[in-house]
């Protein structure tokens, strides 16, 4: 009985030690990753961790998001477009544009982990009809 207890304690100790080690190793790794893959200000403000958008435990396997993933929070293409309805009149609503209507994917402009790019600016000077991409 005594030996059994001793063995069990040893097992418990080893298991807890190794999990502590993993946690300790993982923490700085996560912090490092989050420093590398920063969020845009409007999302950073919300204090999101990676798993708010990416699925799974292993950051190595995180995939870039599809528009449909964005819409789980943002509702629908129509809802996003409606927020900029005042731009419709001049056909400059980027979410309901002259060229693409509602069919533009989010990542065409909104890169979360790097500086966003303004697709419209590929051909247009947008100073008078558009803000910077948030």
């Amino acid at each position: 009985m005594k030996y059994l207890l001793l063995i069990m304690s040893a097992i418990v100790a080893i298991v807890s030690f190794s999990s502590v080690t993993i946690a300790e190793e993982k923490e700085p790794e996560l912090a490092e990753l989050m420093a590398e893959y920063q969020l845009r200000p409007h999302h950073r403000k919300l204090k999101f961790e990676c798993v708010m958008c990416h699925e799974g435990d292993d950051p190595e396997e995180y995939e870039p998001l599809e528009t449909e993933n964005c819409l789980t929070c943002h509702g629908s293409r129509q809802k996003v477009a409606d927020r900029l309805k005042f731009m419709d009149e001049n056909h400059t609503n980027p979410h309901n544009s002259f060229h693409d209507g509602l069919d533009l994917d989010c990542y065409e402009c909104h890169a979360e982990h790097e500086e966003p790019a303004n697709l419209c600016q590929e051909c247009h000077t947008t100073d008078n009809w558009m803000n910077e991409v948030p």
Partner: protein
Amino acid sequence: MNKKVFIFVLIVIGGLLGMGSSLIISEVVHVTGNAEFCGSCHSMEPMAKTFKLDTHGGNNRHGFVAECADCHLPHDSVLGYMIDKTAHGINDVFVETFTDVDEIDWIARRENRDEFVYSSGCLSCHQGLLDKTEAENPKSLQTHAHYKKQLEKGDPIQCVSCHVTVGHAGQLRTELNKLKPEFSFSDSTESH
């Protein structure tokens, strides 16, 4: 009359006056917190108009209508509510009367929405929201769990931090643009 009795009677009279005026005050607070009242000031017209398009403004199956004060005043305690209500009342009357409200840059102010909408207000109606275990959109369970976690960590986010268009049907910016356009649209010629 005995002096002690006199003092007692006076304090009782004062007390009754105080409680009576509290009743009147709470009626006044009640009547001055809805979109009808708030929207009667010129500067609040876009807010009242877009509110009526929103679920919270009556655009729902149940004919439910919230009041401006339900979201835009803190609901932690009656005292806090009253203090904020008083401060807003004084501020709003002053600003509306003595300053040019057309100068206010409401579009820019939307950045600080966290300060104008109180999660305690949201949660005093949506009391059970954070404890839900199933939802039409399962993503909401994850994000609401995040809200709770941040609250417990003492590093809270607000309901409107995510629900940026709530209460005004996502149309407030558009409505404000009718009064003061963000863009001139003066030159949309192709550049290269």
